């Protein structure tokens, strides 16, 4: 997995609450068996009209937000389905940081598996970032994961964010969870040797 530490990028605001993974990546694209190439389907039903033409009203299609890499949005982002296609699509599109007051659990987890940093900030700050990114042209944020700081170029916004220490360590070092767990092979074996009957074994 790629590592993340410092990031500077353009912010795009999606000023809505409860955006679910069905919106992030609609189901018709879940039939693909690849992990890559989902970016063109991101927010598909919002980005494109029924005839396949571009919906110019949708914020991601506005010139001002071209090449954005930081998504800022409302509460409970990523609710619903566990589809990891959602962070794959965001990442493939170029989003590396997502800022929201809160995230749905499975989506939040999935981000870390894919080198996306989801940052939880106070609702008031999120609203402020949303409003700045709407009103200014090319509104950028800087993120330093190691020091857990986030600030804008004018430094009107400059705050520390929280993140579990272990998640931060994994992102900074681009660590692979499976590799880490396989180092505990002896503990897994030990556990298996003592599993009870009601642990349940599937019969063939």
């Amino acid at each position, binding site marked *: 997995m790629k590592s993340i530490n410092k990031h500077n990028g353009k912010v795009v605001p999606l000023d809505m609450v409860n955006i679910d993974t069905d919106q992030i990546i609609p*189901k018709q694209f*879940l039939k693909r068996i690849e992990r890559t190439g989902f970016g063109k389907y991101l927010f598909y039903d919002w980005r494109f009209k029924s005839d396949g033409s571009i919906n110019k009203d949708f914020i991601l299609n506005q010139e001002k937000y071209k090449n954005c890499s930081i998504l800022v949005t409302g509460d409970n982002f990523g609710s619903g*389905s566990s589809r990891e296609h959602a962070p794959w699509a965001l990442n493939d599109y170029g989003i590396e940081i997502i800022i929201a007051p809160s995230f*749905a659990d*499975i989506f939040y987890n999935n981000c870390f598996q894919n080198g996306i940093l989801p940052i939880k900030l106070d609702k008031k700050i999120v609203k402020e970032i949303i409003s700045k990114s709407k009103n200014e042209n090319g509104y950028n944020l800087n993120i330093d994961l190691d020091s857990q700081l986030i600030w804008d170029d004018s430094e009107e916004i400059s705050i520390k964010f929280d993140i579990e220490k272990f998640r931060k360590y994994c992102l900074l070092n681009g660590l692979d969870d499976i590799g880490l*767990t396989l180092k505990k092979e002896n503990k*897994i074996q030990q556990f298996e040797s003592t599993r009870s009957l009601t642990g349940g074994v599937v019969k*063939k």
Partner: protein
Amino acid sequence: MTHNPKTLFDKIWEKHLVDENEGQPSILYVDLHMIHEVTSPQAFEGLRLAQRKVRRPDLTVAVADHAIPTWKGRNTISDPIAKQQVETLTKNCDEFGITLYDMYHENQGIVHVIGPDLGLTQPGKIIVCGDSHTSTNGAFGSFAIGIGTSEVEHVLATQTLRQFKPKTMNIHIEGSLPNGVTAKDLILGIIKHIGISGAVGHAIEYTGDAITNLSMEGRMTVCNMSIEAGGRAGMIAPDNKTINYLENKPFAPKGKDFEIAKKEWLDLRTDVGAKYDTKIIIDSNELEPFVTWGTNPGMVAPITGKIPNPKHTVDEDEKSSISKALEYMGLKPDTKIQDIQIDRVFIGSCTNSRIEDLEAAAAIVKNKKINPNVSAMVVPGSTLVKKIAEEKGLDKIFQDAGFEWREAGCSMCLGMNPDILSPKERCASTSNRNFEGRQGKDGRTHLVSPEMAAAAAISGHFIDIREL
């Protein structure tokens, strides 16, 4: 009182700890890993690239359910991309030695329906699947959670899962369910009460007479939609109903083993005095048959109610959510729920496609005809459910009324197969999500119980089943 009282969740968590270190996610052993065609191909590809094996193919079961067609006698998949996905599952299961129930197998069905059907789901187990509705299995007193594809790969490779311990939440229902109020209404009422992110970060345990009085099917409906309240998992302590349901199921322990298991299972409950991080009490009297009117499962109104008016909302985020939802749904504020006309009815999905659901719906449509403006379908949750339903003659009741009777699968719950709504079609659906485009681009979904869906199919609009 026990010296160190624990919750049901804590007991299962502790029993499965392989390793724990301060500040790190715990490593938990997984007893049962269910996989399906949509969220597994990339996980197998990852294994291949890293030259890893599936550690416990014997604890892994695969089924094709999401992308397969449900038309009668299905013998091919016409969509080439879906076909490739299903074939990839078959190839991966062959290569890694995993039991697969493909669309021709008698054990095939929706992944969360077949686990219980076959007795693979058992109390005290940790069960995972790359699917958020894995929470369904919690109805048996297991800790069952949906995971992402990277985690699927992790479980395949290590038979363990890394998890930060969720908080615990007790949702206690005071009193028993009023007449005409089903398990589906109960969970919709819970989501209405706590909101769609009300249980984020929590494993929920449901308690109270209204819960214990439910059949296993009803408990599964409740646990299924825990994710729609944001919950990590939903659980109900095992009791004699749980035991009776599992006895003689194909993969449940047999004979003496069953007796030993039974004793352990009945001990799995929250100790008196154990503390939950969050406790919610809901009065069963506030429950009615419910209908969702918007684009998330928290947008719920009683059948006797009206569509809300955003004018009466103070919170700006909520106001714009309501307006956006009503625009998408093609509904006007203050419309009576019973005045909403429907075009389609879908009875199925991992929420409401079990035999009891089909029986309840059949009882309402028996000797009646569906409204001429409505097209309706029943999609049994599993091939086994379909077989039992046919033995009971339910297929005939539905077909005589004008319903289509289909093969088992996820079908129109998420429309990954050909079963989708056309733009602006309005559907009374027994599924779990009414998100924009969920059942088809610009399709309009109203979530209801099987009884309410059946009654709506007959009348052409929503009606109060208590008045039938």
